[in-house]
């Protein structure tokens, strides 16, 4: 095979037939379609933010080049002009054998849109690497590519290979060291096929669900909680057309990957490639910015480290991982600690202490300043006596003497912090006002970005300064900038993805909470199994359970879909009308009757009630009551006549027997509640009671429970008749 290697791309060995293939291409998304780096990204695109003094995109491009990619399409959307300008003026515009082409768009609001646009351009002719511009890696693509191509040859449906890496999330915070949420992946250990990808597994708290068909199809599955998604994908051409076919795919993982995994009609398959010794990580939030910066300084990403990447400007690596550019003026009494980077032209005053930090170019740092774990970009002025801990300080910031940054502060471009002012922990400070329409919901991130695309107009900071006069005091005497308020509800979570390390008291608190959770879990588990034998009995009778199975898998799927829709509606506060529409659409696509809808919705509501935390039966009852009250309209819109109402009662009964036994004790109360809310008419309940009258004793458990209530109903009815 050695003889057949193509000289231009020595790293990618190719089969003879592959020689005719196109050069390896890559799509680099220079827009993360997220808002995690705000307010900084309001003024500069994320990919141009300096990572140890070098723009992120340079790391990505340098890796692509070294990995044998010959043509890169850089897709820019927000601040596209800045990205294009940067690329044109950089070394990347003039490389032989490495062509960087930019694709500009002003109306793409998601990765899905970006890929659809690229598909229309018709520039990708074969396998390509899909990566976002904020990824740092030094892995060799050869092996992964080889695997991908061989798989593709055998199975045309193997269209994507995802790179994953070992990384165990913290047992306490349940997030990885990159600050991302824990990820559950099910992988077939033999074929490495990805079977399940769950990054937001909170719906089923304490449990992770695996589809039974997966287990039936794969004798062995490994469920990973210790892997990290590197967001480096090797894709076949079909991926682009899939995005075009499924115009609702937006997010690469949440929609595309999950969409492919659940879709068994087309049978497309995703595989994983695990890297062991090389580095790959994506900067997704401030915490990963911090983590990856440290990894770079500690040279895990070699050869992509500042002294090699920067090329022209001489940067020396000294002992203890200190990087120092050539003309740095450091006072003799200043203490530059380990793992610190000092950029060109920076001046540092007397008795200043800096450790574990990055200081960019042309900064002026006064005397008696303490800087610890900070990322200070270019041309920053820090006057005497300032204290900075675990903060990000963008270009042109001025900190007047004695100012203090508490952990987790972000100072965006050209902010001025007044004398002696203490910026509280986790504040985000910008010259720009916080956008008023706040979407705390990540799902809507792309809607948010539409405003982002129009932002270049704001960029002239000078123009904005006058507006600030009235709020200038926010940052103390002489300070300029707005402190952004934190979204409601997210406040407590701010520490999770901040640059600052997680404070100890948080950890302790979390640990205690977790213990409680576990406690509850085991209890839940007990409930679950204690009645196991009850279940066995009903199995023997061969009653309800089996009938259910017979009604086919379709209904099971339908129920699942409805449940997912409902949960989404709850989590995103979707309007009831919209939820009704969505369920109706599901009904049509699964060819179900509205009876089924009613049953499925009711099921989802009750399941949610069970799964929301509760300690006692009365709390559970309250949960259920809240949910029923809130969503009764949704349920009612599928209760057209009495049969459907009966179905709801039957469904409830079934749940009490099987999936949600906690409700068994509450059966009459909930029934009463449903009656009170006019979800069930008394006729329906009475009819149900009549139907059940003839059933076996085992079937009548709940009828007995609610005897009193039914009696009351009957009497009420009789009274009505009397009148």
């Amino acid at each position, binding site marked *: 095979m050695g003889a057949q290697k193509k000289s231009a791309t020595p790293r990618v060995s190719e089969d003879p037939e592959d020689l005719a293939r196109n050069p390896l291409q890559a799509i680099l998304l220079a827009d993360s379609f997220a808002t995690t780096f705000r307010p900084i990204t309001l003024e500069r695109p994320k990919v141009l933010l300096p990572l140890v003094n070098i723009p992120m995109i340079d790391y990505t491009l340098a890796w692509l080049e070294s990995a044998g990619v010959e043509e890169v399409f850089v897709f820019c959307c927000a601040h596209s002009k800045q990205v294009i300008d940067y690329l044109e003026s950089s070394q990347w515009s003039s490389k032989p054998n490495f062509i960087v082409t930019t694709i500009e768009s002003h109306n793409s609001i998601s990765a899905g849109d970006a890929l659809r646009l690229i598909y229309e351009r018709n520039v990708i002719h074969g396998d390509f690497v899909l990566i976002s511009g904020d990824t740092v890696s030094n892995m060799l693509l050869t092996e992964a590519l080889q695997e991908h191509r061989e798989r593709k040859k055998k199975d045309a449906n193997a269209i994507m290979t995802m790179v994953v890496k070992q990384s*165990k*999330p913290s*047992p*306490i915070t*349940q997030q990885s060291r990159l600050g991302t949420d*824990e990820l*559950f992946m*099910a992988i077939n*250990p033999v074929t490495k096929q990805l079977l399940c990808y769950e990054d937001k*597994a909170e719906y*089923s708290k*304490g*449990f*992770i*669900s*695996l*589809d*039974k068909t997966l*287990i*039936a199809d*794969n*004798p*062995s*599955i*490994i*469920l*990973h*909680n*210790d*892997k990290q998604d590197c967001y480096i994908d090797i894709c076949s051409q079909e991926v682009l057309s899939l995005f075009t076919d499924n115009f609702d795919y937006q997010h690469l993982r949440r929609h595309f990957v999950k969409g492919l995994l659940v879709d068994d009609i087309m049978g497309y398959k995703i595989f994983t490639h695990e890297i062991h010794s090389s580095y790959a990580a994506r900067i997704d939030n401030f915490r990963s910015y911090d983590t990856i910066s440290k990894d770079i300084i500690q040279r895990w990403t070699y050869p992509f480290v500042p002294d090699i990447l920067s090329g022209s400007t001489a940067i020396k690596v000294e002992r203890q991982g200190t990087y120092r550019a050539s003309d740095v003026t450091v006072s003799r009494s200043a203490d530059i600690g380990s793992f610190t980077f000092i950029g060109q032209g920076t001046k540092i005053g007397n008795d200043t202490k800096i450790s574990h930090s990055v200081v960019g170019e042309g900064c002026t740092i006064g005397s008696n300043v303490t800087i610890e774990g900070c990322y200070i970009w270019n041309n920053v002025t820090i006057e005497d006596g300032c204290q900075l801990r675990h903060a990000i300080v963008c270009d042109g910031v001025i900190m007047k003497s004695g100012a203090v940054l508490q952990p987790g502060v972000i100072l965006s471009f050209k902010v001025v912090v007044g004398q002696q002012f203490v910026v509280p922990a986790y504040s985000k400070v910008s010259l720009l006002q916080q956008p008023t329409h706040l979407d705390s919901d990540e799902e809507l991130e792309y809607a948010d970005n539409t405003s982002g695309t129009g932002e270049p107009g704001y960029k002239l900071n000078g123009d904005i300064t006058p507006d600030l006069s009235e709020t200038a005091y926010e940052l103390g005497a002489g300070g300029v900038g707005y402190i952004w308020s934190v979204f409601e509800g997210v406040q407590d979570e701010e520490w999770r993805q901040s640059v600052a390390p997680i404070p100890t008291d948080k950890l302790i608190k979390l*640990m205690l909470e977790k213990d409680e*959770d*576990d*406690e509850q*879990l*085991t209890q839940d*588990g*007990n409930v679950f*199994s*204690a*009645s*196991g*034998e009850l*279940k*066995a009995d009903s*199995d023997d009778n061969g009653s309800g*359970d089996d009938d259910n*199975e017979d009604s086919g898998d379709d209904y099971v799927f339908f129920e699942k879909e409805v449940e997912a829709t409902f949960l989404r509606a709850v989590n995103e506060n979707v309007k009831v009308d919209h939820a009704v529409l969505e369920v109706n659409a599901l009904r049509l696509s699964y060819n179900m009757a509205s009876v089924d809808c009613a049953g499925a919705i009711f099921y989802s509501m009750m399941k949610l009630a069970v799964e929301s935390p509760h300690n006692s039966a009365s709390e559970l009852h309250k949960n259920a009551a809240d949910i029923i009250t809130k969503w009764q309209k949704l349920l009612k819109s599928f209760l057209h006549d009495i049969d459907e109402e009966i179905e709801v009662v039957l469904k409830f009964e079934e749940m009490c027997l099987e999936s949600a036994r906690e409700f068994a004790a509450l059966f009459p109360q909930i029934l009463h509640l449903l009656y009170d809310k006019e979800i069930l008419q008394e006729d329906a309940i009475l009819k149900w009671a009549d139907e059940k009258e003839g059933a076996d004793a085992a079937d009548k458990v709940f009828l007995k429970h609610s005897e009193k209530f039914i009696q009351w109903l009957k009497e009420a009815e009789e009274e009505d008749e009397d009148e």
Partner: protein
Amino acid sequence: MDFQVVVLAGGNSKNLNPLVSKDVPKPLLPVANRPVLYYVLHQLGQSNLKDLIVVVEGEDAALLVGGWISKTFVDGLHVEIAAVPEDIGTAGALRAISHHLTAKDILVVSGDLVSDVPPGAVAATHRRHDAALTAMLCSVPVSGSSDSGSSGGKDKTKKSGRYNIIGLDPCKQFLLHIATGYEIEKDSRLQKHILHAVGQMEIRSDLMDAHMYAFKRSALQEVLDQKDTFQSLKQDVVPYLVRSQLKSEVLLNGISQAEENGNEKLSSLNNQVLVYQILANASTPSFHERYSMEPDGSSQSRKTHKCCAYIASNSSYCVRLNSIQAFMDINRDVTGEADHLLSDTSSDRDNIIGPSPKLGAKTTVGPQCILGEGSEIGDKCQVKRSVIGRHCRIGSHVKIVNSVVMNHVTIGDGCIIQGSVICNNVQLQERVVLKDCLVGAGFVVTMGNEYKGESLARKEK
């Protein structure tokens, strides 16, 4: 070895109607002309596990089984027979005999297990890890339904393919998840906190829980005492222990007792832990220890217990006789591919033809057949892949293929029997044709009848 063995022999299993009867309870069903219980007891004896309690459902059945055991295993085994009421489940049975349990560890074996996996190996694994529970897992038998000939009573046998869902740690030593029975029909729900502690879990659906468990006695008795609703070991007790392994309620009590006795005891307990670590060759602590240490390095702040798995090698034979299909399969396998189960027994029985049968002229008995002593076969008969019990009388021109014929059966001339089970004392008159049938004890099939796929039994009085 401080191990006590409990053999749950069962009684009149409904699944096996009409094969079982008053005279032949499930433990005495013949497999290659020996009661199925023989195979378990023999394996236990081979592993030097000789302190046994055989639990039988129903007094009458217990008498029968006890009689047989005292006749067969005169030497070596110390066997107690305990009768328990019917239908109290496996956990109920253990609860009933709980006061007999004295050893530190208890090995619970199902009496219907036909296997060549040494129970001693399971016990050793259990000891090595100081586990609260060790379950034996074996590969799902691939034989069975593939063979079209042996399909007697298919209506009764559950469709294969639904076995257990089992979660293992990466070293395949620990049992992290187990789901059996009805839970399999649904999507599996795996507990996150165990997954968090271990990092990755291998989920296997090609393994079968062979119903051979080693328990720590203290753990077992506590679970049985506290959870009085638990009826089944397989469906309640074992999943419970597995589920709660990182949040142990079982050992929790044990340790609080130790605390009452003062610190001295506690330290000895720690020493014990250390010793077990060394025994387990644990250069790195297992996830249980890591989990229990985690928060601040102080030892044992969380109580855990270990659930281990012993996975039988692929080549070993391991099937439970819990359905009619399994009965057919086991009989076929024990005479065929798994004949080592027979050949290493004390008797030097030839697995092709038994001693002293009388064969008529031009009668052929094919390979993989067993003829019991005292049976007689007339002229021009054919016997293929079948087991024929003791003292049967078979007429001329009879064809028996893929079938099991028990003792004292009379088969008239010209009968054709395929894929069927004929129980004790059955009388088949002349020219009966049976295909895939079950004939219950004492039934009489009248002359010339033809049956296909039916279950024939006398009406219960």
